[in-house]
């Protein structure tokens, strides 16, 4: 990859991190929980973004970042008080900055008016006038340019002479000049580059050797420079040292004259280089006295000690764990390989068992150890791709802010468990459903301030977002302290949309679950917050597509909580291995609600050839998997087999007839589409211990194809139970 393109990518990645820091810091400041280091970090975040943006000539970004940074600088130097109004502007600015970064990354156009108005607001805070420079690009260049005559020097140059002018430059460097790493030799060399020089050294101030301080400066240099360049250019040579020497630049019209006592060219004075050339890094140059050495030796450990001391102070607070950056492709490849390892290990175990060797305890022990090891490697490798949910949660923070403004409600977001790690693949697909849920919580959950006040609640509502690991899965909860689900209203809408019968008896929990039905949306008018009335059915489908489940709990007047249970990764699946005809199939465990051996009294015929089975007070369609998949012509005898009650994404239930259940295990997901294409009813494939391919059932498409899942109201009633 082109280096600059790679660095540009790095820059945008870094921007994401900086924006995250910025958000966290500003929120902390807003909640009064910030210290000076937080404020500094906030400033640095914007400063960093600005710096990098400048390097890539992202002018729009630089311009805004500069104004933003200026305001933050005033806050950190305590010249601007961080009131909540000010912080509100800062938070807005952070949002706009994030958008500008995004637009810069994809090279998109941007709504300038948003930026301009915010810039005005920021300038209002910083007291900058409208006409003041916005600090574009490298900012005000105080340094004169080559071709512009600038009168800064002591002597005026009437006009730049086209022909070479001779300047007499006298310079007496002071000790500090060398201390700061500058060297006269280099300065003289640079002067030499500007034209013809003749250099002389005035050594009159040089003391005798035993009075010589190797770090002292006793020399005055006189240079006659004939150059076509102007005084400004000459001054530029000395720009770094101008405070550390006595400097005089005089254009001499009459040629090189003047006192030149004891003229000796530089190289001939043996002592001069010693005094003039300070020690190089780590080296001690010639001419040091013993005393000097001892003194230095004493000082060096002191400096080192100080460095040591400073480190533990910081080090104790956070031992920064060393990290490395790895290509995602490599990690993915590694994960695939480990998947192979798991499969092969299972195959080995099976073959050994079949060969009857497992009885031998040493072999069994060895296999057991291998299995354990393989599992640990797999977990370790999965953990590499795991990321904390923090950035995802921070995005939600911003959404709540925007909604708070738009709806006129006052809501704050509390997060918990931000450090919980989830596989990349899952996190990426969580963003949308989570956004919808947060939006719904603010839009429908939390009441307006006056309603809350009337109910005796605090004016500001709270939405809590939490993540935790629990029994091998990720549990994410979105809860609000709003009014809870308006059950009468939900029920009425469901009846109106003919989703339930008018006289249907539903428990509270059942009513709550009506929200997940497709076509259900409590927005009587399209809310421009939640979009096209995006409903919980879409959310549920997304979560289930991830192999997760979602449930809801709500208490009148107190609020609602949505719980998501997700797998740790999308590369493996918990499945039930079943036998259908003579084929082995895998059914995703998350879809299975119940397994049972059907009783004759439970199975009923419906219509010509359909059958249903009793399920919790209702009936669900009975589907013969072998027949549906074309493995057998006639339906199998359900009483000779096993029935799996499964739940589809649309919350309908089905009973699947299989021949037998083999076992339950975690399988590695293999794509069918990579070398073939999507097969309706089949989600993917896996490789079993015997090396053969087994198909993984896709409950939703499978049931949809059977065409028997169209629920009657009674069935639906049972399904939501």
């Amino acid at each position, binding site marked *: 990859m082109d280096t600059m393109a790679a660095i540009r990518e790095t820059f945008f990645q870094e921007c994401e991190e900086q924006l995250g820091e910025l958000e966290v810091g500003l929120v902390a400041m807003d909640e009064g929980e910030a210290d000076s280091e937080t404020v500094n970090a906030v400033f640095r975040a914007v400063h960093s973004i600005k710096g990098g943006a400048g390097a890539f000539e992202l002018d729009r970004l630089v311009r805004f970042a500069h104004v933003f940074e200026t305001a933050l600088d005033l806050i950190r130097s305590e010249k601007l008080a961080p009131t909540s109004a000010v912080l509100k502007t800062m938070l807005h600015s952070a949002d706009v900055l994030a958008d500008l970064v995004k637009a810069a990354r994809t090279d998109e156009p941007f709504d300038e008016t948003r930026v301009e108005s915010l810039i005005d607001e920021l300038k209002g805070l910083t007291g900058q006038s409208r006409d003041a420079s916005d600090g574009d690009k490298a900012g005000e260049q105080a340094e004169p340019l080559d071709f512009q005559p600038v009168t800064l020097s002591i002597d005026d140059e009437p006009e730049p002479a086209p022909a070479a002018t001779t300047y007499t430059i006298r310079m007496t460097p002071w000790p500090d000049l060398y201390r700061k790493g500058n060297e006269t030799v280099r300065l003289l060399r640079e002067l030499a580059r500007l034209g013809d020089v003749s250099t002389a050294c005035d050594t009159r101030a040089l003391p005798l050797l035993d009075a010589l301080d190797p770090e002292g400066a006793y020399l005055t240099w006189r240079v006659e420079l004939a150059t076509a360049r102007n005084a400004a250019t000459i001054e530029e040579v000395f720009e770094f040292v101008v405070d550390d020497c006595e400097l005089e630049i005089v254009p001499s019209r009459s040629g090189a004259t003047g006192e030149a006592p004891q003229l000796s060219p530089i190289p001939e004075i043996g002592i001069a280089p010693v005094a003039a050339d300070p020690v190089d890094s780590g080296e001690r140059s010639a001419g040091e006295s013993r005393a000097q050495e001892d003194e230095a030796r004493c000082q060096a450990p002191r400096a080192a000690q100080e460095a040591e001391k400073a480190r533990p102070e910081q080090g104790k607070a956070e031992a920064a764990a060393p990290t490395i950056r790895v290509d995602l492709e490599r990690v993915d490849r590694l994960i*695939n390989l480990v*998947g*192979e390892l798991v*499969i092969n290990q299972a195959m080995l175990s099976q073959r050994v068992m079949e060969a009857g060797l497992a009885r031998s305890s040493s072999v069994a022990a060895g296999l057991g150890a291998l299995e354990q090891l393989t599992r640990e490697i797999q977990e370790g490798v999965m953990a590499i791709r795991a990321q904390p949910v923090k950035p995802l949660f921070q995005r939600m923070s911003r959404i709540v802010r925007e909604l708070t403004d738009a709806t006129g409600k006052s809501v704050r977001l509390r997060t918990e468990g931000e450090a919980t790690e989830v596989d990349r693949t899952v996190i990426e697909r969580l963003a949308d459903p989570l956004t919808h849920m947060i939006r719904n919580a603010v839009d429908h959950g939390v009441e307006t301030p006056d309603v809350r006040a009337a109910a005796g609640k605090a004016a500001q509502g709270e939405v809590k977002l939490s993540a935790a690991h629990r029994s091998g899965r990720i549990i994410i909860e979105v809860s609000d302290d709003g009014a809870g689900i308006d059950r009468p209203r939900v029920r009425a809408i469901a009846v109106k949309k003919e989703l339930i019968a008018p006289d249907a008896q539903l428990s509270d929990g059942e009513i709550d679950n009506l929200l997940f039905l497709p076509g259900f949306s409590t927005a009587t008018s399209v809310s421009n917050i939640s979009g096209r009335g995006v409903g919980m059915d879409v959310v549920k489908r997304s979560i289930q597509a991830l192999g997760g489940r979602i449930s809801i709990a709500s208490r009148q007047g107190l609020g609602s909580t949505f719980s998501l249970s997700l797998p740790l990764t999308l590369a493996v699946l918990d499945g039930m291995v079943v036998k259908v005809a003579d*084929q082995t199939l895998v059914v995703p465990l998350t879809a299975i609600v119940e397994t049972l051996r059907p009783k004759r009294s439970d199975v009923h015929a419906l219509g010509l050839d359909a059958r249903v089975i009793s399920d919790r007070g209702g009936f669900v369609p009975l589907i013969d998997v072998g027949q*549906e*998949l*074309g*493995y057998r012509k006639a339906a199998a005898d359900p009483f000779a087999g096993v029935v799996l009650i499964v739940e589809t994404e649309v919350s309908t239930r089905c009973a699947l007839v299989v021949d037998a259940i083999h076992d339950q295990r975690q399988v590695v997901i*293999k*794509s*069918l589409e*990579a*070398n*073939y294409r999507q*097969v*309706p*009813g*089949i989600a993917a*494939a896996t*490789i079993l211990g015997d*090396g*053969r*391919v*087994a*198909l993984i059932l896709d409950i939703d498409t499978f049931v949809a194809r059977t065409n028997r899942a169209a629920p009657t109201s009674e069935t639906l009633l049972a399904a939501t139970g």
Partner: protein
Amino acid sequence: MTEKNAAAGGSACEFIAFRIGAQEFCIDIMCVREIRGWTPATALPHAPSYVRGVINLRGSVLPIVDLAERLGFPPIEATAREVIIVVQVGGQIIGLLVDAVSDILTQSTENIQPTPEVATDLAKSFVRGVLAVDRRMIGLIELDSLMSAQVEKAA
């Protein structure tokens, strides 16, 4: 095992020749990844009849195409004697079920003659030409259309 022809112009290509029933066909060796013996495939529901199923090829799931059936012949009785030629078609890897591999040919592309008119439509859509070798007629199979074209119809 190689047979050379006086390559007067045109580029020399290598082909793997194989038998299906009594007939011989070949494909460009550049497409061939490997040759394996037959292993039982896992059936794919609702797949076209010429797709026998999928097998496990070192961790990847590979569809097996009965080339005989695809060309319109009676399907191959798959036994351990049969051979699977693993080929790359576009971005996918698939396995072609044939009776046996017979030869590796080096031929100039010039020697490829147009498919005779007597061939069935199905055969013609996949056989892009024939090579005359040793008084044998070996059909050159075009892989690109193997999985597509009529596939949608059958699905």
